[in-house]
């Protein structure tokens, strides 16, 4: 994993975008009545950890299948590492690593034997192959279980093994479908650590799907939110938050003294741009447009109140996500 630039396969690494899709569409059913992915357009830049978020059934897995050539799109175009996702599937697979969900391995084989089998599919020379197997299993923390049968692995170990499996060909881009689903928090944390480490140290582009916003928030540079096959938003965590703020307004939390909270609520409700004000646990929760901070503070002062705390309740991504979906 020293240098992913060395990977053969004619990848066009000069291109900044390692993944580009335009109006990618997938319809199922006889008349195409079920639209799983609807005119999706995305760019993923080289070296990014790109999160693909959406509720279950939003079309994340379908998109991913199309990107690695397991499904043929019914419309639109896509390129992964410069290869067409319809015509150059094998080339794409040579430079990609995939951890599908669900992922099964050969339970009757040891971790080493499993990896050896996958490595043979890339025709990796035996000496390099054996060295890489050990390195990868070491990296994912399975060096103690290298000659144990996969059948005896825990879910967490399987996920980490899956990651090693996806890296056997030193890919330029990793597709991880729900990499932490079904594993305990400690295991999930370890997995996230590995992904960050990969991105940081090995210059691998990671395209991961998840329904866990906190996870995506923690490890992803950029995020795409998808719902019912449609792309809702793309951007960094901050950009997404801003986007929601622009649209939905901001929650301010105020602690005030010298006046009654009830008076304050009445006063604030009169202001244009303040949608809702509520008292909760002795503090004011004000939902207002962005840029109403000064207006609110002025109104409280006019009432004779003193603002001892005035802060914006920053939405976590979970909230942002929900807001995006709601809108």
């Amino acid at each position, binding site marked *: 994993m020293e240098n992913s630039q060395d990977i053969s396969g004619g990848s066009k690494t000069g291109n900044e975008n390692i993944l580009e899709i335009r109006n990618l569409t997938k319809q199922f059913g006889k008349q195409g009545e079920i639209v799983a992915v609807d005119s999706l357009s995305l760019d993923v830049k080289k070296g990014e950890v790109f999160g693909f978020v959406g509720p279950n059934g939003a079309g994340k897995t379908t998109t991913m299948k199309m990107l690695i050539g397991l499904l043929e799109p019914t419309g639109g175009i896509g390129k992964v590492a410069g290869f067409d996702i319809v015509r150059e599937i*094998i080339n794409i697979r040579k430079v*990609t*690593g*995939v951890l599908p969900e*669900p992922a099964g*391995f050969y339970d*009757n084989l040891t971790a080493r034997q499993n990896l050896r089998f996958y490595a043979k*599919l890339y025709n990796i020379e035996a000496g390099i192959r054996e060295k890489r197997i050990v390195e990868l299993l070491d990296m994912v923390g399975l060096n103690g279980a290298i000659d144990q049968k996969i059948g005896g692995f825990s879910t967490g170990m399987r996920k980490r093994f899956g990651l090693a499996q996806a890296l056997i*060909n030193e890919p330029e881009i990793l597709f991880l479908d729900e990499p932490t689903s079904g594993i305990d928090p400690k295991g999930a944390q370890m997995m996230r650590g590995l992904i960050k480490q990969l991105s940081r140290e090995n210059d691998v582009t990671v395209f991961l799907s998840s329904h866990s916003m906190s996870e995506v928030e923690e490890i992803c540079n950029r995020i795409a939110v998808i719902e019912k096959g449609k792309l809702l938003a793309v951007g960094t965590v901050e950009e997404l938050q801003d986007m929601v703020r622009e649209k939905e307004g901001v929650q301010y939390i105020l602690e005030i003294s010298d006046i009654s909270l009830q008076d304050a609520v009445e006063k604030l409700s009169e202001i244009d741009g303040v949608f809702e004000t509520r008292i909760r646990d002795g503090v004011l929760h004000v939902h207002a447009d962005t840029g109403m901070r000064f207006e609110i503070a002025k109104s409280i002062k006019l009432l004779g109140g003193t603002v001892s705390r005035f802060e914006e309740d920053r939405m976590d991504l979970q909230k942002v996500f929900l807001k995006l979906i709601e809108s």
Partner: protein
Amino acid sequence: MKGRNVFVIAQKEVADHLQDTGFLVLLAIYTIIIFSSTYMSGSFVHQESSMLLGSINVKMIAMFAPLIGIVLGFDAVVREQKSGSLNVLLTHPLFRDNIIAGKLLGSMLVLAAIIIFSVFVSIGTLLIFYGVEIGYTEIIRIFVFTILTFFYVSIFLGAAVLISTMVKDGTDSLTYNVVVWLFIGILFGAILKTAIAILTGDISNESVLITQLLNMAPIHHFAEAVVGRIDLGFGGFNSAGSVIGGIFDTEYTLTQCLIEFKMNIVVLVVTPAILFIIAFIAFLRKDITL
């Protein structure tokens, strides 16, 4: 790279079978059955033209060798699919046809090895224990017999792989395969006999209807080509299908035998090929959920 991966898959398939304890036990049992039945029938007096060939218990092989094909093929696809390993495999640089082709190739290789192994070990042991003479003619006939047996069992391998592509569960696959084995394998003759007797009241063994219906059973073609009988199944028909006693009839030249049983041999060779192609297509059209 594309073609090479067929062999990677085939090699894994062979290795899986060879290192499977259950499979090895089955191979040992099968070889012992073939050997002991050959040994036993060798101790009876034969009027056949060749003592050695007459000793080979073709009936036993015709009934039980298909089990080898079934064991090799019944979970070929369904196991991978169920465990999810197919999902992972498909993300690597190989086409679907490589996978099914590799699996068929690997299984056929193991099948060939088993059949050659069982026939060679049985006959070899017989030669040592009895000290009977073996001639060039007999060696050639045994060679042809081995090939025919391979094709015959390949029919069941093809059926097993096809079934394993279509069902959702390994147990279902095994059940269906055993049903197929019982029906078109060992009991076809007996069932046909009963059905004809009930429906037409005809209890003779040689009506045209029976002859035509028997053509559906691989065991009929195998039986006719090897020993010239119309059926070798359990409780089935017991009449000779030809003047020539199959390829084991050394009164006729091999060419004469091959010409006489041309149709049976063609069926034995073509049927597995057709089943393989169907299994191949079924696998390619299969929806594999990622």
